């Protein structure tokens, strides 16, 4: 396994998150940058880099509290893929509180703002990972 692969596998989650966000937010310039970053990994012959099985929420003042409130029941990827208005996020947070998410009443509005800012309707679509492809099944198609 190449040195680059090891580094990539052990990237702090926040850095990994930032890389993903950069691509989503900044368009082609960042796409090119990430391609350059990724190139040594591709040349190492890896099928693709390993993603963490469960994703993490983005940095922000509510990251820790949101992680505690939400990810006891489900991983962050369920949140990362939503693209909702503030009104819709309010309904979701209220539903989840009813279903057992522990959210201090004083944090409610900040939590809605955190989700709305990171996962609003104008954000680019979330790109999910895949499970590795088995070569044998590809050949049999």
């Amino acid at each position, binding site marked *: 396994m190449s040195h680059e692969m090891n580094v990539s596998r052990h990237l702090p989650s926040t850095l990994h998150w930032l890389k993903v966000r950069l691509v989503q937010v900044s368009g082609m310039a960042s796409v090119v940058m990430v391609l350059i970053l990724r190139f040594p990994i591709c040349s190492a012959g890896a099928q*693709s880099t390993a993603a963490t099985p469960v994703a993490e929420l983005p940095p922000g003042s509510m990251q820790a509290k949101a992680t505690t409130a939400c990810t006891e*029941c489900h*991983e962050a*990827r*369920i949140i990362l893929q939503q693209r*909702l208005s503030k009104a*819709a996020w309010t309904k979701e947070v209220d539903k989840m509180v009813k279903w057992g998410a522990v959210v201090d009443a004083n944090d409610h509005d900040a939590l809605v703002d955190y989700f709305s800012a990171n996962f609003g309707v104008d954000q680019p679509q979330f790109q*999910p990972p*895949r499970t590795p492809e*088995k070569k044998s099944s590809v050949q049999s198609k």
Partner: protein
Amino acid sequence: MKSRRDFLKQLSNAALAVSAAPSFFSKLAFSQSGSVSIPGEDGMIVRSFRFLDLETPVENFNTWLTPVPHFFVRNHMHEPSELDPSQWKLSVGGEVEKPIAFSLAELSKIETHSVVNTLECAGNGRSLYRPQVPGIQWGKGAVGTAKFSGPRLRDVLQRAGVKQTGKHVMFRGLDEVPGKVPAFIRSIPIEKALDADTLIATHMNGAPLTKHHGFPARALVPGWIGAASCKWLTEVKVLDSEFVGNFMSPGYRYPNAPVKPGNAVKAEDTHPLTALSVKSVISGPLDGAVLKPGKVSIHGAAWAGESEIAKVEVSTDGGTSWKQAVLGREQARYAWRLWSYAWQPKAGEYTILSRATDSQGRTQPETAAWNPSGYLYNAIDQVKIHVS
């Protein structure tokens, strides 16, 4: 009609042509996000790891039966952490003369019936609605076709003796419910429960169900939304009315009348989802593909829940003209039909559409009917490709 071998050959040639020239952006998106290994799952899109929700990439829809490692997985809760098949029991109670329980061995002694069924999550295609709605953001691949086998639900119910008061049949699974989340419990009307094709399935494509698909037994309610087919089944209860719970209302309900996109709908103006809509998906060429001029097979799958596919039409000019596709030979009452259309494009940019019509005369609409939970997306499918 061409032979099955020709049909499959055509599909596989097209798949090769497409895989040789994949879309730059689809590759990029893939490498960006890396991979997550899940034993038994092959090249699946990970919508969520916990709960597990896996989507099939559309290019896999080129076989009539979807191999289990390519079959979508939709879990509402955590899978059972411990499940000992020797201890497993299925209880049958409620509005019955004699409540009864079956072990797996006892269940296996009841006559087995097989149904090839296209199973589709009600939320398949949710990500394509605008405005966007909350829920798992499925693309086009929360659907698959498999041969499900096991005893008929009605044979099991008859052993308990359904009372005249029995109007609905409720299923409870062994999935583990976190927090104060309501359990995933739904019911189906007694008429559908007693249908000869409604099963307690123990096998999928000839092998015992895998854990992700409900081992050791699941309900199989053919032609209906996937949520009707409860996994890890442990209780069948006959009720005198529809089950009352989150996953019957407000979950899995559909507006009685068209809704202006973005508007709310009152619960009393909705009904529970049952059968699937008429729908087709293009499995090749893939969106964004770059192809060489010459022979190209446009292909995919089409299904219509409890209804049959009457025809699939293809447009290669963005909907100005339509040509009829050839339907694959393999068919079964609740199963999709594969289809293909042989095309000879010259260089250029193309928008390819597919439109299915069923035996009831239902045709895929240009725009799917928006609804607050994003169910039953079935707009005419579309891919854009470049030929040079």
